[in-house]
């Protein structure tokens, strides 16, 4: 047993350490600094081991901290009408019941289980018991600080706070023993990743029972909730026998893990299937154009669902929201002053909104998955003239697609500004509309330029560019930070227009200069 423990942890750790080292190699600058024989370097391995250990600690404490702070303690703060210790215990009890079958660790298929028990043929019983024992230990150790800290803060008696983690572990053990007995009797394996509808329904009912009664002023009395918790300790001890003596761990794991090898590339298959699903099967779609315009028109028409339809839907939502604000000012004239002031200073906020509503990433992803991924393997398609011609056409299309919601939003904001009290300087209206449109232009060019300059995918549709990923994250972070920026409309608007126009010019020059070399399949 001890040997299994040592072997299985060293296997899990090796797998984790190698994943960390692999991830390090994906970071653009580090990639050139790190040696090729990365996995042999002792210093790096020690560093990755430290990270792996930290991750283990995080998995013990951080997730439980989040669970307690958000689901039990945090939401419990909302219920002012019921005694705080009682609402704490009430919520925790029902969530514990859900966790007992939704988070078993015994019935969840994972890669490390697959590697150990199927590929390396380790003894399934010892492996499962060692890991299950460790998972239960993590539950108790991870829960204890939070039941003590937050339970005591909410006024739960100390003795109960100390026993609660054992009750949680007992509940998990009891459900595990029940599921194992069920396998012995009926041969059915409890699969945590494929729960039945009835189980989901039960989860819904338990969630309602956890959160609704306290809102209505009803919670279980202390004696009842304590009793319902403590009962799991003897139940767990009895179940322990069943779990330890169970003889069919290899059989249930074989069934549980049979899907793991196919799951490993199922994400890739799912992306491909989703991309193909986006292609319209409408046979009436044709085009009278020639060459690249012909290719483009068929592409846009056959991808209407993900390009134009969603853009029009977003435009519709923007129109409804703007009308809503206009109506609100009509009904509540006192709101006008606030809205007017927001309108005059909140323009940076719209950078984030436009980031969200633009179709740039959807467009480039569909372009790659359904078009460029295959055509880039043909030499005629990779000629500089072809690449640039198609870039022009595509830029025009994505600008049109993004411009519709931007125009609706821009006109809506102009109307809102006018209706909320207007402005002395009519230039404000012009700048407002122009800046929203230029932001839309920016996102159109930005995503297409990144796609052409960093083309991140391989022929197998695997994304291989760390730089592309970083550029994507940076775009998000900058737009997110814009939300906190409050600047006068005219100042931000003019700066924004100038930036967007300059950026677009630079981006186009870069594409013309470099795309013929960079727009290739990654190898």
């Amino acid at each position, binding site marked *: 047993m001890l040997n299994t423990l040592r072997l299985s942890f060293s296997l899990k750790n090796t797998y984790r350490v190698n994943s960390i080292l692999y991830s390090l190699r994906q970071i653009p600058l580090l990639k050139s600094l790190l040696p*090729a*024989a990365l996995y042999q370097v002792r210093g790096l391995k020690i560093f990755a081991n430290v990270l792996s250990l930290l991750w283990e600690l995080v998995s013990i404490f951080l997730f439980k901290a989040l669970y307690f702070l958000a689901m039990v303690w945090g939401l419990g703060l909302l219920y002012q009408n019921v005694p705080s210790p009682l609402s704490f215990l009430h919520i925790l009890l029902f969530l514990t019941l859900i966790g007992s079958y939704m988070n078993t660790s015994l019935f969840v298929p994972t890669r490390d289980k697959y590697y150990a028990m199927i590929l390396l043929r380790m003894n399934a019983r010892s492996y499962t018991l060692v890991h299950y024992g460790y998972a239960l230990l993590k539950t108790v150790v991870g829960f204890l600080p939070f039941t003590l800290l937050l339970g005591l803060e909410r006024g739960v008696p100390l003795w109960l706070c100390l026993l609660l983690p054992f009750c949680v572990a007992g509940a998990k053990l009891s459900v595990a023993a029940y599921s194992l007995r069920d396998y012995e009797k009926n041969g059915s394996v409890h699969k945590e990743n494929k729960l039945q509808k009835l189980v989901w329904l039960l989860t819904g009912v338990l969630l309602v029972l956890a959160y609704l009664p306290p809102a209505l002023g009803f919670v279980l009395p202390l004696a009842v909730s304590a009793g319902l918790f403590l009962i799991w300790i003897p139940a767990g001890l009895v179940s322990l026998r069943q779990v330890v003596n169970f003889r069919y761990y290899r059989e249930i794991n074989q069934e549980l893990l049979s899907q793991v090898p196919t799951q490993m590339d199922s994400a890739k298959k799912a992306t491909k299937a989703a*991309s*193909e699903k986006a*292609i319209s*099967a409408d*046979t009436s779609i044709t085009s009278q154009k*020639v*060459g*690249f315009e*012909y*290719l483009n028109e*068929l*592409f846009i028409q*056959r*991808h209407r669902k993900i390009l134009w339809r969603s853009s029009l839907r977003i435009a519709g939502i923007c129109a409804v929201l703007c009308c809503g604000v206009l109506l609100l000012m009509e009904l509540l004239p006192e709101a006008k002053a606030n809205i007017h002031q927001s309108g005059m200073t909140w323009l940076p906020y719209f950078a984030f909104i436009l980031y969200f509503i633009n179709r740039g990433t959807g467009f480039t992803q569909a372009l790659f998955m*359904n*078009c460029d*991924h*295959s*055509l880039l*393997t*043909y*030499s*005629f398609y*990779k*000629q500089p003239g*072809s690449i640039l011609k198609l870039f022009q056409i595509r830029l025009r299309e994505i600008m049109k697609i993004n411009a519709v919601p931007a125009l609706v939003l821009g006109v809506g904001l102009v109307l809102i500004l006018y209706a909320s009290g207007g402005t002395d300087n009519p230039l404000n209206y012009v700048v407002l509309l122009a800046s929203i449109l230029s932001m839309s232009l920016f996102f159109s060019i930005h995503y297409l330029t990144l796609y052409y300059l960093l083309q991140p995918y391989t*022929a197998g549709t695997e994304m291989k560019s760390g730089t592309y990923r970083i550029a994507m994250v940076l775009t998000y972070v900058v737009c997110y930070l814009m939300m906190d920026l409050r600047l006068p409309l005219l100042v931000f608007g003019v700066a924004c227009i100038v930036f967007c126009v300059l950026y677009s010019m630079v981006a186009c020059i870069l594409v013309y200069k470099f795309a013929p070399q960079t727009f*290739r*399949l990654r*190898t």
Partner: protein
Amino acid sequence: MNFVIEHLSKRFELKTVLRDIDFTFQEGKIYGLLGRNGAGKTTLFNCLNRDMKADGGTFYLEEDGVRRDVAAEDIGYVLSTPTVPEFLTGREFLKFFLDINRASIQSPKSLDEYFDWMSIAPEDRDKLLKDYSHGMKNKMQMLVNIIAQPKILLLDEPLTSLDVVVAEEMKQLLRSLKDGRITLFSTHILDLALDLCDEIVLLSHGTLEVVEKSNLDDREFKERIIAALKEETYA
């Protein structure tokens, strides 16, 4: 016409995959490129097709003693996994290709003539390519690569996973196409290489070398090839 490779080299970090390759391919021949797994066959093709930058060396065409660079349209590259634009029908893909390459295609035929040539049934011609079978996609890919009559045709395991009828059709097609061009055919199937190719070239230790058949019979020739391949220990 000759296709000449001079001092071509490529390394991935510590591993040298192509080591100063010097080789001359001659017009009208099908070359069977054999090598162990990981020997660098696909890397060689990627470098020749300029999908990957070589570390050094050059390659060019020599026509009537005149040397010229290999242009993109000189090369047709057929991958083992057929890649075709899924959102187009077979007919649309062919029309698009002919639109773009109209200037360079000598005596173009009608779309249906091309489909007939490749034995693609009339009812399949207006289907979306995403609904084509593996073999049909492969035929479309081959068709588009040969219409423009490239001087050099690179084929990376193109007959793998085709049914016997389609594979036989493809072999016939390749034989009929070999005049006037250089065909470089990579495969792991030795019998296929012996059946189809005029010359057997080994990619071993990062270099190319011809295996001379001289006066050996088929069995002895096979043994010589396998013995040569076995020399590359770290495949």
